[in-house]
Structures are given as C-alpha cells and as structure tokens.
C-alpha cells in the first residue's frame, strides 16, 4: 500500500522529509547563494545604488530606454557567449552588425523593398559572414581570433562599399517602408486592452511571464524531488519565487506607464529563452561545452568538433545580423562606422557574466546579467551627467573588478 503511494508522481509532501537533512541553515544558505551568484548580487547592488542616487533612473521612460538602447549588445552577447564557451572569440561582430544594417538600409532606401525583405536580407548576410568565418576556423583550422580579426577589417570595408562611404537615413515618410522598419526597435504594443495612464496589455503579459516562470520552477522542483535531489525547503522556495515574480511584475508595471511593451523586448526575451534552452538542454549545447572544456576528449566522445566550431560562428553571424537590424532600426539610419567596438561590449558582458577565457564555462543568463551591468552603469552615469571619458574609465574598472571578484569567489569555493 505504502509502496504504491510512493510510486505515484510525487505528492509534494511525501518525499519532503527524506530531503530534510539536505537543507542547511538559512545563514549558510544565504552565504552559499552569495558566493554562487556573485555577479547577480553585484548587479542588484549597482542597480540599488543607481536607483537611490538618481530619481530618474527607475522612471518608466528610463527603464524603457535601457531596454531599447542596449538590446543589440545583449543580442550580440548571446552569440558571443557560445563562441567563448567553445574556446573561440569573434572580433568581427561589430563590423557584421554594421554591414547587415547597411544592407537592410540600402534595400529600403535605394530599392524601396518591403521592410521584411530588408530584414531577411540582413539576416542572410549575417549568416553568410558567419559561414565564411566558420569555414576558416573549422575546416582550415585557423584560430577564431585571427579569422575574426581579418573579418573585422573585411566586413567593415564591405560596409563602407555598400554605403559608398556615406551614412544613409531611413526615411520617416509614412508612405515608405521606413517607419515599419524603424518600429522593430522603436515600436510598442500599446492600448490593445486600454488602461488608464498605464497599458493593461503590458501588465498582463508580465503577469503571465511571472506566473509562467513560477510554474516552470515548480515543475522543475517536483521533478528534482522525484529523483531525490536536494532542493530548497518549501518556505524558502516560495520566498524565492515571490521575490522574482514581484521583480518581474514591478518592472512590467513601470514600463507600462511609458510607451507600452516594446517589440524589441519580446524579441530579446524570445532569444534569451531559446538560447538558454539550446545551451542547457540540447546535445548541440552540450557539445559546445564539451569542445570548450576538452576538445580532444570531446572528439573521442563522438562530438563533431568541426561542426560545432562552424555552427557557433554561423550562429554568431546570424545574431549579429539580428543586432544589425535592431541597431539600424533604432538609429533609423546606417552609418559606415556603425557597431565599431561593439564586439568588446559583447565580450565584456560574457566575461563579467562568468564565462571563462579558456572556454567550457559560461551561461547565457550570466552573459545577460553581465550585459545589463554594463548597460545600467552606462545609463546611470549618463543620467548623472558623467562624460564619455569617465564612463569608459568606470566600465573598464568594472570589467576588471567583476572578473576578479568572480575568480576570488570561485577560489574560495574550491578550497572550502
């Protein structure tokens, strides 16, 4: 009788006592959390300091602007994370971003193509750039650093050629394709369900997101219990969910008071979720980590190393294309120098987010937090009126300190 109960899909209460010894005291749990999520803690700290020191920082308009302004760096960081995990580097993404944005703009301005044709063309160009680099890395065996250093010059040169050395403004004339294209980065869902001073639709989407997150976490916990893994105790688990859900809804509430739900936020959320799943839950993702961790062992375990190297570069090219569209749409123009230096922002985001320079380590969510740290710092300092030079100095130091902090943390975790 009892055995049949135990076999039924785990009632929450039954396996609970079995895991009791695994729960540790609240104090040590907090300490554990701090050491394992150092970067997240740093982000929360920076965010809090900025919110306190500047009234405008938490305002609906500013939060929306952060999303709009830094989305392309986050998109680049997703792809870069996978490149770095595979123990490669891609220095060409800024140039690819410039080139893809240029191609899309030229199609819209000079050839009056529909906006979606321009987008598809930009993505295709991104894929081709990625495949070009992937070929040299995977087939010929040249290190990604060199290939992409070449690519950085090559694609920048092509950007100049495509734009004939001048910047190209995407027309705002309502009869043209310009406004539709620009709305990719500047458009909002607003007023679909009405609302008084705030957009009901936006709030509902965020509530759905928060609930969805909680349901997924709950299911994961149930599964873990079924396989007798250690889990957070129920009260702590509920507190954790409540805090995260509150943050999600609060963020949604704030931006619903501005222009509504940015299209770009949906694109970004989709990409983050999709790539988190790819890296954590698929064989392909596992292969990237295996190649970065020990290439020889991965090869002998049947991982197709060449394909993995090829694929991460193709994927990076694709995402650089997405970022190129977003950036040119946001600027409503294509400049020959667009995206110059963005590769360094993307790389910095990955390393701040805990990726290893040796490969094999790093997570998409980490890179996103790393990117957000840079974004929030930049934005906060702009609000406070710091000039470009100060901002660069601070960002440089933050990159160094964040990685040092992470290293020290890990070293301490290792000795204990």
């Amino acid at each position: 009788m009892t055995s049949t109960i135990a076999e039924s899909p785990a009632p929450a209460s039954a396996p609970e006592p079995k895991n009791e010894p695994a729960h540790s005291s609240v104090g040590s749990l907090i300490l554990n959390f701090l050491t394992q999520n150092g970067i997240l803690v740093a982000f929360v700290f920076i965010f809090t300091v900025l919110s306190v020191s500047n009234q405008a920082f938490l305002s609906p308009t500013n939060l929306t602007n952060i999303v709009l302004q830094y989305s392309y760096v986050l998109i680049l960081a997703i792809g870069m994370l996978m490149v770095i995990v595979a123990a490669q580097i891609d220095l060409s993404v800024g140039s690819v971003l410039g080139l893809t944005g240029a191609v899309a703009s030229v199609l819209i301005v000079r050839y009056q193509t529909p906006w979606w044709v321009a987008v598809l063309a930009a993505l295709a160009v991104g894929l081709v750039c990625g495949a070009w680099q992937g070929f040299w890395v995977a087939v010929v065996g040249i290190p990604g650093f060199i290939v992409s250093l070449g690519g950085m010059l090559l694609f920048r040169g092509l950007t100049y050629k495509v734009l004939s050395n001048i910047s190209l403004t995407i027309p705002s004339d309502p009869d043209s394709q310009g406004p539709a294209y620009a709305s990719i980065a500047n458009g909002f869902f607003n007023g679909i369900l009405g609302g008084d001073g705030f957009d009901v639709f936006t709030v509902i989407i965020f509530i759905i997101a928060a609930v969805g997150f909680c349901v997924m976490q709950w299911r994961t916990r149930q599964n873990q219990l079924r396989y007798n893994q250690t889990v957070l105790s129920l009260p702590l688990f509920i507190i954790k969910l409540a805090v995260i859900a509150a943050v999600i809804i609060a963020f949604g509430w704030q931006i619903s008071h501005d222009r509504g739900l940015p299209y770009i936020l949906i694109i970004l959320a989709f990409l983050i979720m999709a790539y988190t799943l790819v890296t954590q839950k698929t064989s392909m993702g596992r292969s990237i980590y295996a190649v970065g961790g020990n290439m020889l062992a991965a090869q002998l375990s049947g991982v197709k190393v060449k394909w993995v190297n090829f694929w991460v570069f193709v994927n990076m090219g694709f995402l650089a294309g997405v970022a190129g569209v977003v950036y040119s749409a946001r600027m409503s123009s294509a400049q020959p120098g667009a995206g110059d230096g963005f590769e360094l922002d993307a790389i910095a985001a990955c390393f701040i987010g805990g990726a290893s320079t040796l490969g094999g380590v790093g997570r998409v969510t980490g890179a996103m937090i790393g990117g957000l740290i840079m974004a929030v710092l930049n934005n906060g300092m702009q609000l406070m009126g710091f000039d470009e030079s100060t901002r660069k100095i601070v960002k440089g130091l933050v990159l160094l300190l964040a990685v040092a902090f992470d290293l020290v943390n890990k070293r301490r975790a290792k000795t204990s």
Partner: protein
Amino acid sequence: MGDTILQMRSITKTFPGVVALDDVNLTVARGEIHAICGENGAGKSTLMKVLSGVHPHGTYSGEIIFDNQPATFGSITDSEHLGIVIIHQELALSPHMSIAENIFLVNERKGVLGFIDWNRTNAEAQELMTRVGLDENPTTLISQIGVGKQQLVEIAKALYKDVKLLILDEPTAALNDDDSEHLLGLIRQLKAQGITCIMISHKLGEIAEIADTTTIIRDGKTIETIDMGEPDATQDRIIRGMVGRSLENRFPERDVPIGEERLRVEGWSVNHPTQAGRRIVENASFNVRAGEVVGIAGLMGAGRTELAMSLFGKSYGRFAGGQMYLNGKNVHLNSPSDAIAAGLAYATEDRKRYGLNLIEDIRINITSAGLSRLTTATWINSDEELQVAENYRKDMRIKTPSVLHPIGKLSGGNQQKVVLSKWLFTDPQILILDEPTRGIDVGAKYEIYNLINQMVAQGKAVVVISSELPELLGVCDRIYTLSFGRITGELPVSEATQENLMKLMTIEKDEVR
C-alpha cells in the same frame, strides 16, 4: 644507517571537512632510498606537499626536522634552498625551450653585463646531463625528447640545485621498461653519491628492487615502516598494508563462455599524421570474440594506442589500408561517432587529455559519449541523466559525495571508473581499454578487473592494451604482441609467460618475418 636526514613528527593536516593526514610519522635515513606506498588518496602527495612547503608551515600541525634543524618552510623556494627538490608526476618543463634553458630556468648562467652566456649555459648543462646519463644535445627542445628523457632533465635540474633530498612522485608511471630501468639505475647512482631519495610508487616490483625502506600510508595514517632487507618484507605484506586486507588473488576469477566473433581486423595499416609515408602500424590483423578478453602487449611506441585510435573511427594518423568486420560484416568507420554508433568504445590511456572534461561534473562526463540515448527529439532529459549518473556511481562504486561534483577532484582510480561508465553508457559491443589501470592503486585495479569480467559476462568483447605484462596474463584469454607497429605473435594465455611475451614484443623491424 644511524644518521637521519629527515624526521616528520605527528604531522596532521586537515582540509575543511577532511583529515588528509592524521598523526603521520616519517623517518628517512641519510643516503637511503625510501619508498612511500599507499592507495590513491591515502595522503602521500599531501605529505610530500607539506614537506616541500607547498602547504606552508602553520597550515599543518606537527614538526619537520631536516638535517637536525627544525624546518619551517613558507614556500617551495625555502625547501629548495635547503636541498629538498620534488619532481612531480606531471613534469614542469617548458616544451618549446631547450634542455639547457630548462635546466637553468630562473637561474640563467650570465656573462658580461648580465646577458646570458650561452656557451657556459650549454657547457654546464652538458655536464649535468652526463651525470644523469642523458645523451642529447643541450640545445635540443624538450618537446623533441620522450618522457623518459624529460624525467632525466628534471633530475639534472635538481642536481644543479645541489639536491640533498630528492622526492620523486611516481617517476616511472609513464615510462616504458627500458627507461624505467635506466631511471632506477640512476637513482642508485645518486644514492652512491650520497643523495637521499624518497620515491612514491605503485609498482611493487620496482620498490622491492630498489628501496631500502618502505613506509606505508593508508587513510592519512602511517601503517608501518618496513626495512626491505628483512626476509618478511614481501610484496604481499605491502599490499596488505596498503589496502588493509590481504589480496589473495590480484586478479578476480572469471568463467565466461566464449562465443561468436565480434570484431575482426585484417591488414590494418596506419601512417603518421604529418610525416608522409612513415608507417606506425603495419598490416595488423587480429580478432576478438564475444565474452573474450584479448590483450595487446607492446612497449611504448610500438603503435598500440595508434592502432586502437585508428580503429576507433580513424581518430589517429592517416589510414593506409585494411578491413574491419563487426559481427562478420565489413564496416567503414570514419569518425568516432560512427564508431560509437557501430558499438565500439575506446577508453584512452591518457584520461586527463583525451578522456575527461575536467572542468565539468561527474554526471556530464558519464553521459558525454552516449548523450543521444537521453535526448527525446531535441531536449536532453536532465532528470533521467542524473538518474543514469547516479546508477553508475552506485554500480561502479565511484567514491564521491555526489555526481554533481567536479571530476577533477576525484582520484585516478575513480576518474577511471567514470571513463568506463561513460563508455558503458554507450552500450558498446566491443570495448578497447588502453592502459585501463595506469596510475591507479591496487584496490581500484582489482575493481577495474572485476568490471572487465562483468563486461564479458554480458557478452561484450574486450581488448586490453597494457605494458604491464602481469596484468595481461591475469585478465586476458589471449594475447597479441605488437612490436614496431607489427603484430609479432598471438598466444593463448595458457602458453604465455612474461619471458616469451617480452621476446615477441622486442622483435626488431627487420627480424619480423
């Protein structure tokens, strides 16, 4: 002997949660060769790290008396200053520098204005090299000489530092018999020159041959110190001390009926990957049947690993001809993934380099070769994966608190069990095990042999490559010998002896056929 050079008294060293050394005592007489034996994880390396100052004074309790002076080493430089030099298993040489440059690294021989005097450097290096019997040009790059010679460079370096106490951590683990013999001879010579030597080793035969005294450590405690001159200082006594039980038989019994032919290789040839036309494996033919353990005996450099890796989806060198039949069917495997899909598994001799992803946890390593068995359509079933890893942890008795622990922290024996788990999870028909017990202790070896028996009992076919002949004689049904890339003999185990195998393994190229 009388004069003691080193005394370590009541050394206790704890790491958070673990007592690594518990009241360990070690007394080493001046001018002797002192062997330290113990299973992996027994605390030998920790003891040597305490002695050499890697774990500085203050992080352990107890005292060290060296040369009648209490020693408090703050770092490895302090101990080297007094003439204690440790040579680690993983050699610390810079591969792209010459022998002479390596010997004098950080102590460059300088001439006018403080610039390096290359003539002096090379001349002095040559002197040291002669002392260790290393017949090479001092300007030869480290990467161009074999492990055996690299070991000699390390010793030359130690001699330069005016070593009084030389500590060698498993010096012969990676050496073939010739090189080992040379090294042991050198250690005896150094002894004659008054240099004391502490040697950590798993090779009991070697210890019996060379050591004056043996100290056995188990679970962080000194078990006993044996004077090897005594008549009852037998290998069995050492084993008993190391594992805490007597190993009546070092090889478990097996009674498995031998079935159908699983793998047949005909005329297999492999060329060197970069040197065109250089044959590494020449016209090799052999077969393995279900339920059978077949050994491949060969010295280092005979082409054993190269043959195995080439069979495993052509992962070594350039394929130069030959046929392979699996269950009687001719197959062409062009990549490791083809080989895995065809039911082949190859567990490498160099698990750190080719076998494991050391930064990942145990679970991910176990499932890394058979991941397709855990994926439904696209997604990996992580819960199932954990269950699989957990099952292997239990079945293989991998000693770890959790399969989510990083694999780098496990001992060699346990890492090897993870490698075997990884390959068993691909559900292979034929397993090629390359030096499956290299660098692991007696107790774990026995467990690995047991696992081999279980594999053949399930009808799998196993090929064991080893340079330890007693091991091959203990576990195999049939043994092939390999010399200079050619199969030079095939013997059923009943007819094989160490002597006749060795004879076949050393047939020179022109003598073949």
